[in-house]
């Protein structure tokens, strides 16, 4: 065998090119999934631009057909903060450009979503993205038509215009043409919109599909969830790379000050104590740390026990009240409850678990609980069975809580965190993290207990009514019989009247059954006819 010397060529890949080649990671694996993902990215940007900034969202989503039956136009409109014109090209034309690289909970976090949709649209239809935007305080409206230069990861602005505002409006409209498959994506997209509406009862959401399918979710409250506050990273949640980035961006010249200023939960005393333990000088310049020193520092920080626990300020839970409202509005159950657990921490990342539970009413019975999963308010629709949340919900012994399947039961679980531990690259299911599992399990038990006492109470009332019905249904028959039996055989006169007897019998009955009111109209309620 003879070896052929081959010439290996080297080149670097632009982020745009990398993500385009690996587009399934971002959810653009086929036309159906891509259409769904594009809607998702644009809707999530719209929500980030509104509620995170204290604005009650109004969101409109349109999907239209084009002359090419494979191509669709997706357009999402919001009343958010808008995008300053100087940032529009990069925000929509440069992969990994974002305003959300901050330690706070938002839906988008990587500067990727909108661009993946634009990139996919551009490559499947050759058409540019169109953006109309007006920032909150701006007097003008800006219009852009742009494409992405994939090789160089740079925006190409094709058209640009602006005009002065005629009415008070701020917000953004993004319109993308892309290859899609509405027939296949339809049910997922509609389900997605419904699930978004479920946790945003403070939003007004309109959806119009290409086949005239139309969904409108009105706003049912003006209460917004508490917005996330940006925080410094916690020492437990920082890895080597993140630590290096903090060093690169710091102004501090002393290690002690760097620790105090760059991290949360680190005071002067703690910083000194930690550094002394490791044996690093307090006034060493952080930029002069060797790689080994950094490694030791990161490791020791993770072991050190005297930091204050991570703060929950960057988190924005939905809140039990809003979950209840959402479940009520969308599912129309007869019973609903929800709880927001206290913040907890895994691997240095704060997280909050929220669980809502809806039962009966318009919910259809099924053989297992209907599960609504959310991560940072984003509905998770795919890979349900591999999700730890699914496992927890189905492992619970529901019979202990007086629920026997098939039952009309829906469970909503929301995990919010500065870092969601996803399973795999698809970001559609939550990984098994003991701390999170424990929180979810406790939350679930707590709401299930409330459901149990509701069901018990209901069963008791039902039982009383059942008993009452057995008596009341015979009442007219008995009263009529007695009326006839009261006829004096000599004079042929009746001695009592059936109405009088019914009243008396009801009185006796109300003495026996004190749990519910026994009154005259009960007869009309129970008896339909006697034939």
């Amino acid at each position, binding site marked *: 065998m003879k070896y052929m010397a081959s010439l290996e060529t080297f080149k670097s890949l632009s982020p745009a090119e990398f993500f385009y080649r690996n587009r399934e990671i971002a959810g653009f694996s086929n036309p159906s999934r891509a259409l769904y993902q594009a809607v998702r990215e644009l809707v999530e940007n719209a929500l980030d631009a509104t509620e995170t900034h204290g604005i009650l969202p109004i969101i409109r989503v349109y999907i239209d057909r084009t002359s090419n039956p494979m191509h669709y136009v997706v357009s999402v409109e919001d009343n958010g903060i808008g995008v300053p014109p100087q940032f529009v090209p990069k925000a929509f034309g440069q992969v990994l450009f974002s305003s959300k690289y901050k330690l706070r909970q938002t839906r988008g976090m990587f500067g990727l979503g909108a661009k993946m949709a634009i990139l996919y649209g551009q490559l499947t239809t050759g058409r540019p993205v169109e953006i109309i935007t007006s920032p909150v305080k701006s007097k003008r409206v800006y219009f852009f038509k742009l494409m992405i230069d994939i090789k160089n990861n740079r925006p190409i602005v094709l058209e640009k215009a602006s005009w002065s505002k005629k009415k008070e409006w701020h917000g953004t409209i993004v319109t993308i043409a892309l290859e899609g498959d509405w027939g296949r994506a339809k049910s997922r997209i509609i389900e997605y919109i419904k699930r978004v509406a479920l946790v945003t009862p403070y939003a007004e959401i309109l959806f119009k599909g290409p086949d005239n399918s139309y969904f409108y979710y009105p706003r049912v409250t003006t209460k917004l969830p508490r917005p996330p506050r940006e925080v410094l990273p916690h020492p437990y949640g920082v890895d080597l790379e993140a630590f290096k980035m903090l060093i690169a961006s710091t102004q501090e010249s002393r290690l002690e000050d760097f620790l105090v200023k760059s991290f949360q939960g680190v005071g002067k005393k703690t910083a000194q104590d930690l550094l002394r333990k490791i044996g690093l000088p307090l006034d060493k310049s952080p930029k002069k740390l060797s790689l080994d020193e950094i490694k030791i520092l990161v490791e020791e920080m993770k072991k050190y026990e005297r930091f204050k626990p991570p703060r929950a300020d960057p988190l924005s839970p939905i809140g039990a009240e809003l979950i209840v409202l959402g479940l009520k509005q969308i599912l129309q159950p007869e019973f609903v409850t929800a709880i927001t657990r206290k913040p907890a921490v895994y691997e240095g990342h704060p997280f909050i678990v929220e669980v809502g539970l809806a039962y009966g009413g318009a919910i259809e019975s099924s053989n297992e609980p209907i599960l609504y999963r959310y991560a940072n308010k984003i509905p998770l629709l795919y890979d349900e069975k591999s999700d730890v949340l699914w496992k927890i919900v189905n492992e619970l012994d529901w019979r202990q809580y007086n629920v026997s399947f098939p039952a009309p039961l829906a469970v909503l679980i929301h995990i919010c965190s500065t870092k969601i531990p996803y399973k795999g690259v698809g970001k559609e299911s939550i990984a098994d993290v003991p701390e999170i599992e424990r929180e979810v399990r406790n939350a679930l038990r707590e709401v299930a207990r409330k459901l149990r006492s509701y069901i018990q109470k209901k069963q008791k009332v*039902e039982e009383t*009514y*059942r*008993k*009452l*019905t*057995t*008596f*009341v*249904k*015979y009442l007219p*028959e*008995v009263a*009529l*019989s*007695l009326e*006839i*039996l*009261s*006829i*004096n*055989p000599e004079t*042929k006169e009746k*001695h*009592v009247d059936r109405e*009088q*007897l019914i009243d*008396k*019998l009801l*009185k*006796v*009955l109300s*003495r*026996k059954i004190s749990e519910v009111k026994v009154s005259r109209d009960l007869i009309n*309620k*129970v*008896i*339909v*006819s*006697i*034939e």
Partner: protein
Amino acid sequence: MFSTADLRARKRALKIFWDKFNKLIESIINEEEPLLEIPKRTLANTVYDESRKLLLLGTQKLTRRMFDAHEARKFMQTLLMARIIYEALLNDEYPTIRDLYYRGKHTIVYRDHKGRIREENTWDEQKESDSVIRDLEVLLGLLREEMLILSKEKGKVVGYMRIKSGDDIIDLSKMGHGAYAIESTPDLIEFLDVDAEYVLVIEKDAVFQQLHRIGYWKKHKVILVTSAGQPDRATRRFVRRLNEELKLPVYILTDADPYGWYIYSVFKIGSITLSYESERLATPSARFIGVSMTDIFGDPQKGKKPYLTEKERKHYIIKAKPADIKRAKEIINYKWFQTKQWIKEINLFLTKKAKLEIEALASKGLRFLADKYIPEKIAIKDWIE
């Protein structure tokens, strides 16, 4: 239009109903819990009265409450039945138990505790309405005949005897080849005159007809009765009256098998299901004339020769079926069958595993049955008490 006997019965029944149910009405007006106390009609509450030789109803009572989930439906049915019987009494009607079933049967359409529309019949089968009629009989101490309720009766009678039924006088010796059908309300019959030595009750209608045709009753001065199978209440009451009022001895002729024995015991001491009527229906002095096991096989102890030859036995005997054996074993446990003679009879049956129909004796020769078997057995007192 109505006979005076009817009118009297009607008046009496109405009064008993009125008294009973006005008490219930009064308690309801006083806002007391509506309830009825009804003697229990169960085997456990059936007592065999050794001295009077009667099956009687015990003293246990059940309390049927309107506002008891298990009793509510029965309570309603009891009152509904009381009302339609009462209406019939008031309107001078004679309903049958089937009529009462139809009159009371209707549908209550109601909404259940879950809001679903449901339908329920006041009763579904006649079994249910018959059962509340019996409850009313024991509650009121009034037989249904006394409430002028009719039922299909199958008993027949012939003999030298004149009776008054309604306002008609009937001569029971002038019925041609037919016979007088015993009416549903035998208590309303008036006995005018009689010329008879005893009463012979025959289980089988066919054998009754044969004996009638050859003039058995004329020759032997007999009141001939058939129950045509299990005796109904009217036949039992009629026989009882013949015995009690006319002091005529009563002989009963049935098949030689457990069912025949039980028919005899129903005439004699009453039935388990209708024990409350025994006092009026049973004839404690009735005698079982045959066909007995010893008639078939003889009784060496007593030197009794069988009425059948070896060859005839081969011919006429039917092999007992498992159900017959089972029934015999049940019967031997009934207190009222635990006499020396009966134990001997039943044991003989159990060892021979053989039964015989009366028709077999008639086949041997109607004359044999009429001129030898019956008269001889009566003459030598070969019966079982």
